[in-house]
């Protein structure tokens, strides 16, 4: 076993072990233990990311485990967002008392479920096998649904229920696609579903296409691509803010990676152009559905949720275009979206304390009544809208340019138009939220603001660094490794 493989297994095992310890620890130690364990988990995840990026030309590709550039990037993103989510969670837990479980078990169950969710998420990008990837993605549903409905409020129960039912049905359809693939792979068994073996499918291209469509349609329900995105705005808006951050910034792109790996593996059988067209169609549909909602006055977390739909569409388009430029854009987009979106969701905890109506109504003029909170929300929205110097501006330019480079001028033009419309919607929301008219509000101290301010400072540094990296990434060895994938 190589050092990278050992590190990968430790990255998965450590948060799983922490989840068990959190279930057993004395109540008074739960929060401290959760905070303490988050640092080594994140540190190991970052170490694995660095190793994966440094050895971009020599990925580890096994039947059970893969460590490549794309997976390494996602592990870093999940490590970062998981760390921040754990650290800001005590402010959320202190701000309310309601939950699905009894008050005595509230913190314990929250952190145990959060760590379990984190552990499963870290495993998904590293898994070397489509069947095992499906099992892990389905397992994220059980862990995260409990967290979505954690407050136990009627709206959270509705959101959690929809999430559970819709994604489970979707993943059932995806599993049918996997079974169809398994039927046509000579190796058979679990080995036959490894990423490399998928390209040996011999059941005919027509059946392979059906399997690919079933697989992607099922995964789309989990990624939140339109038109099977119905659970996404509800779950993101009703989950505890640290969980919403993990759902949007980590879960969605992680499942998207499975769709990407499947597309790459099945392209030789189904046809490169066909597999990419399916992704482009999902991407354009998601953008087209999201943009009208970005123009509406929505509650803060619901606005962020529709922004997630938009950004998952952009990433699908980048993968669908598939050129070096587009994939460089995808890599930057995934990381920058995670940083900006997580910041936005973390800001929801102090926002709800400062303006309790924010859970169900659009808010205006936060920057006038609470400057620091307005700055955090403004930076998040500005970055998500693609306002320069946001790295998302550069990544979107790269993806659109990649579309023209790939010979999809109509799709690239439509993407540019929809992105421009989305930008206008979010820019309007940015102005209204931060500098619009504000009703009288309590100006005293609010829960969780210090933590969010600290996250904002780190986010600004990361976002500016990503902008610089985005300019340098096209044409680099890392971009070439993304194009090669696991082949």
């Amino acid at each position, binding site marked *: 076993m190589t050092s990278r493989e050992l590190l990968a297994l430790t990255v998965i095992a450590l948060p799983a072990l922490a989840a068990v310890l959190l279930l057993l620890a004395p109540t008074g130690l739960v929060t401290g233990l959760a905070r303490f364990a988050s640092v080594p988990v994140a540190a190991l995840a970052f170490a694995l990311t660095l190793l994966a990026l440094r050895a971009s030309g020599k990925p580890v590709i096994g039947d059970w485990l893969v460590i490549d550039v794309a997976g390494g990037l996602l592990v870093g993103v999940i490590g970062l967002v998981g760390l921040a989510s754990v650290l800001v969670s005590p402010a959320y837990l202190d701000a309310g008392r309601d939950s699905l479980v009894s008050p005595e078990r509230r913190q314990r169950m929250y952190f145990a479920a959060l760590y379990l969710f984190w552990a499963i998420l870290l495993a998904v990008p590293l898994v070397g096998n489509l069947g095992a990837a499906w099992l892990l993605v389905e397992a994220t549903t059980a862990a995260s649904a409990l967290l979505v409905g954690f407050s136990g409020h009627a709206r959270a129960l509705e959101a959690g229920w929809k999430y559970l039912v819709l994604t489970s049905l979707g993943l059932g359809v995806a599993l049918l696609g996997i079974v169809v693939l398994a039927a046509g792979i000579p190796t058979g*068994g679990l080995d036959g579903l490894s990423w490399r073996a998928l390209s040996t499918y011999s059941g005919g291209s027509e059946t392979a296409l059906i399997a690919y469509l079933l697989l992607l349609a099922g995964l789309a329900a989990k990624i939140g691509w339109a038109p099977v995105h119905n659970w996404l705005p509800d779950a993101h808006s009703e989950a505890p803010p640290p969980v919403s951050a993990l759902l949007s910034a980590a879960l969605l792109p992680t499942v998207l990676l499975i769709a990407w790996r499947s597309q790459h593996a099945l392209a030789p059988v189904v046809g490169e152009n066909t597999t990419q067209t399916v992704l482009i169609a999902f991407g354009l549909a998601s953008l087209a559905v999201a943009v009208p909602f970005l123009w509406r006055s929505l509650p803060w977390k619901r606005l962020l949720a529709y922004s997630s739909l938009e950004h998952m569409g952009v990433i699908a388009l980048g993968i669908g275009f598939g050129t070096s430029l587009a994939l460089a854009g995808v890599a930057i987009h995934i990381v920058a979206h995670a940083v900006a979106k997580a910041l936005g969701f973390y800001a929801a905890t102090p926002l709800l304390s400062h303006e309790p109506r924010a859970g169900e109504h659009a808010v205006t003029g936060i920057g006038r009544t609470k400057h620091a909170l307005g700055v955090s929300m403004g930076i998040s929205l500005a970055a998500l809208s693609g306002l320069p110097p946001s790295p998302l501006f550069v990544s979107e330019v790269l993806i659109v340019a990649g579309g023209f480079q790939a010979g999809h001028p109509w799709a690239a033009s439509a993407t540019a138009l929809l992105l421009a419309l989305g930008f206008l919607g979010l820019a309007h929301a940015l102005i209204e939220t931060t500098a619009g008219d504000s009703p009288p509000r309590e100006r005293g101290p609010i829960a969780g603001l210090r933590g969010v301010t600290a996250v904002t400072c780190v986010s600004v540094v990361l976002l500016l660094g990503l902008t610089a990296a985005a300019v340098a990434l096209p044409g680099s060895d890392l971009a070439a490794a993304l194009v090669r994938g696991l082949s």
Partner: protein
Amino acid sequence: MSGAVIWTLVALGLAVLVVRRRSLAVALVTAQALVLVGVALDEAESSGDVIAAGALAVRAIVLAGLFLLLVSRTRAVRPVRARVAPLARAGIAVAFALALTWLVPAIGLVSRDAERGVLALVAFGIATAALRRATLFQIIGIVLVENALALAALQLPGGASVAIELGVALDLMLVALVAVVFYERIFAEFGTADSATLRALRD
């Protein structure tokens, strides 16, 4: 597996879609899973196959126990009326199943009957979740889809991976367990198990 067994499984699936009582639907979906266990044991060629059949049996019994417990703990004053009448539900589901079998070419299972049976059960599962208002039926719809996939796994030419079959059974039990937690809280919060009450979140 004989055609008669496959069509028995399909008939049980259709019956789940039509029946009114939750306990009867639980019995039908459990019977379906136990038929699959019988087939799995009958066709087992290795210890791995027997283990997979055992996992399927444990899953069927655990889910039946969970669901029946839930039914007994959440007796509604008035039964939840489905939004579509039974015959119309059956008609829609059969039309959906026929459309799927017509649209999807051969998928590589050992017989075309098995392929049709799998597609029909997937269609019935989705139709159950979409057309029944009682929340328990939505979970049962998911179980129907998973039973269809278990049938597909049994009808793979080389057999399915035991690890995957065990994982699927475990995952489904986890999801069902979480669904049960939600179901009880929804019943306590809204005083009914009618999914039509879950409509506060709209844009």
